[in-house]
């Protein structure tokens, strides 16, 4: 696996990783390993993250009450900590996505004339 700088840590806006995690969990509970891979695959490997950085983020989200955790067993029978979205987390995700869309559209409008 190629070793690269994690774009999430160096370039991405704080909070973006949170949004991605919340988005991943909308499909159902998952543990850290699944979440990391889901984000990588979902972005077609554009977003390479250092998987370790996920855990402080998970802790922070849980601390804010947006996700909840429980211990379970993984697909290949390993003990794993699962996270699920809480109602508050769902609300937060909607709010963040809306805001994100607005920002992206705004930036898009500014960039469009230059592209043409």
């Amino acid at each position, binding site marked *: *696996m190629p*070793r690269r700088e994690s774009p999430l840590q160096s370039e991405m806006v704080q909070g973006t990783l949170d949004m991605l995690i919340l988005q991943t969990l909308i499909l159902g509970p998952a*543990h*850290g*390993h699944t979440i*990391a891979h889901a984000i990588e695959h979902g972005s077609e490997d554009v977003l390479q993250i*250092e*998987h*370790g*950085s996920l*855990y*402080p983020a998970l*802790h*922070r989200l849980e*601390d804010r009450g947006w996700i909840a955790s429980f211990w379970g067993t*993984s697909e*290949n029978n*390993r*003990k*794993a*900590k699962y996270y699920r979205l809480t109602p508050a987390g769902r609300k937060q995700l909607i709010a963040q996505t809306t805001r994100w869309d607005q920002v992206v559209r705004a930036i898009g409008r500014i960039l469009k004339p230059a592209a043409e």
Partner: protein
Amino acid sequence: MGITRFFRRANWDRERREEIESYVQMETDDNIARGMPSAAANLAARRKLGNRTLIREEIYGMNTIAFLDTLGRDVRYGLRALRHNLTFTIVALLTLAIGIGANTAVFSVLNSVLLKPLAYPKAEELVALRQLAPGAAGLASFSDGLLLSPSMYYTYAEHNRTFQALGVWTANTVSVTGLAEPEQVRAVLISEGVLETLGVPPAAGRWLSHADQIPVAREQFGFVGRSATVMLSYGYWQRRFGGDRSVIGRSITVDSRTKQIVGVMPRGFRLVNADFDLIEALVFDRNRVILAGFGFNGIGRLKPGVAIAKANADLARLLPVWMDSWTNGPGTNGQVYKIWRITPALRPLKQEVVGNVGDILWVVMGTIGLVMLIACANVTNLLLVRAEVRQQELALRAALGAGRGRLVRSLLVESVILGLMGGVLGVGLAYWGLRFLVAIGPANLPRLNEISIDPRTLAFTVGLSVLSGLFFGLIPALKYAGPRISLVLRSAGRTASLSRERHRVRNLLVVAQVAMALVLLVSAGLMIRTFQALRTVQPGFTNAAQLQTMRISIPPSLVAEGPRITRIQNDIVDKVASIPGVTSVGFASQLPMEGYGSNWDEIFAQDKTYTPGEIPPLRFYKYVSPGYFHTTGARLIAGRELTWTELYGIRPVAMISENLAREMWGSPSAAVGKRIREFMQAPWSEVIGVIEDVRENGVQEKAPEIVYWPTMMPNMFGPGPLAAMGTVTFAIRSNRAGTEGFLNQVRQAVWSVNSSLPLATVRTMQEVYDQSLARTSFTLVMLGIAGAMALLLGIVGIYGVIAYAVSQRRREIGIRVALGAQQGEVQRMFVGYGLGLAAVGVVLGMAAAVGLTQLMKSLLFGISPVDPLTYAAVPVVLGTAAALASYLPARRAAAVDPVEALKAE
């Protein structure tokens, strides 16, 4: 961040570690599934994860309260630093322990006496029924103001609108016989309402009740009778009956009269200021009480929410009612009391209990507080020196990334630890100091038995420790954790030459110390001068150590007739006088400064004319035996003393004090032969002698005008034609006074006359005299200790600063000496430096002392708060001490070898 999370963070950390571990395993599984060898698969998984420790630390950091975390580290670091520099720590700790200990001890006394509420339920409602009567001439001599008469008590108790309960009481001594040896005990006589006012339930049995008030036997002063029941104090119950509960209902013989015990009051119960053994009911015959008889202390419990002013107004409203409702007998008019201008002046009971001790305690607390400030200044100086030595360390820590705030805090934590450790030692010291304080405290220090180190005192100590820690730590911390740190590293190892700025703080501290020490020494000096002034006062008796006193009571129930009482007393005088070493014996109703309530009344003179209804000035009067003045040593100014023939013959004679003679007739000799009387109906008595003034109420108090009557007199109230004072104090002049052998002989002599007579309060006049000076000597000792401590700490402070300056300026001195400076010059330079600081301190201190000593005005006697001698002597003492303290290190400076000093760099 929650505090529980903070303490549970180890748990959290473990969970994270497991979670991350499970990630690594899953990733490894995936990698193996992709065909990697297991070792490589694990390695790849770890690489994918990143720095595990960092992740854990990041999460750990989210869960921590950084302040608490680093505080713990600072405490550990501080302890290590203190242990490292043991000499410094010990010196600083001792200084602090003494300072904090002294403060804690004095505060615990202050707290127990002044701050804690009295030991009665809802004590804030309790008041003492004090009354002023500015129009009553002569009353100014009586510190208690105008006491209540029985008729006043009835009027107040029956018609007031602002009290839940009120009552009157008086203290007395009675003899109890039939238990063991005959014994004189302290009794309080209480009217109905007193126990109800105080509201303390009995420990056993019941209170004295209304039924106990019914007069069962009439005594010579018709309006006061005695009841058939009695209550015991807890102490007397334990002492005489071993705390036996079956004592309720039993009888004891009080003043030869059988009385039934109905109850016991609980431990620690006092009636205002009175410690007592027995409580008896005060029985007035309501049909016979008159307007006069102002001899009873009143206390009351206000209705909830009633202010003192309102209660005063309520009682003032009742005074005309009182004048109209009662009489002093046929031909008298109650309205005459209008000219006395009687004004109720209730005061909180606590104030009554505490009395004038408050002044002393606040002054002592203030001086001890100053000592604490001086001690703190010394510790600050020590810390400054140490911080200088530690500059390297601090600079290194700063270089390694410690912020200024962190460094300041770390230094403060260290000094607060020092303060707290000093506090712990201080509490230990205070425990011992307290015993000392209580031992030397005035014997009449109120609430003595309540003094203890309680939670409030401990809180005070902790507060004081922390505050002083912050106080003496802040200056060095701010100074040395400052931004100049980088400079220090560069100049490492080289002693910089004297910088003015570096010494400014230290000099300021020394100046402040000297100034405070001066204030304390001036206060101590003023107390010494006060004490001296008191010692020179002629108290009205001589050679007190050779004057034995004892109180003997012949109860009327044992012997009632005046002549027989006088005969017994005369026999005692003769028997005691025949004991070897006794030169003279006499007796009186009370000796000077004895503290038994004095009698007083209006005194009329035959050669003066009085307008109808005019009340002449009130005068003290006492009853004395023949030879009494000769025995005590009170000088006869004019005329002669009473003789036994005159006493037995009921001759109408009297003696008066010199000041009374001068006031009434201009000179002592003019008074002899004049005639006076107490009542309109009484026969005129001839003044046969004028006696020097006696300080009846203590050395500090002005000598009152006194009339001395013979101890036997025509009886105007009770049965029989003659009455005599049954309870008197004997005075025995002997060089063996106070020795055990002598006292045994005296006891045998008394019992050979009558074996059922108890001897009470056996002591020498010296003890009585010392006790009257106790307030002053206590203050003197306390201020003396504070002054001595301040002087010592001040000397140490000056010494420290000069010694430090010398060590810092070795190079400069070396150059000076090398350039030809003489040893003397170098010495003078440093002594001059020390004296200069002291001089500034003295000037500032003088200014402060002039202001502050005004506060202790009430404690002074015979001198002004700006006593010139004190103000001249103290700076000399301080200057000498300062010169000495600077001379020692200066001598070392002069001995500096220039070669050595310059080579050392």
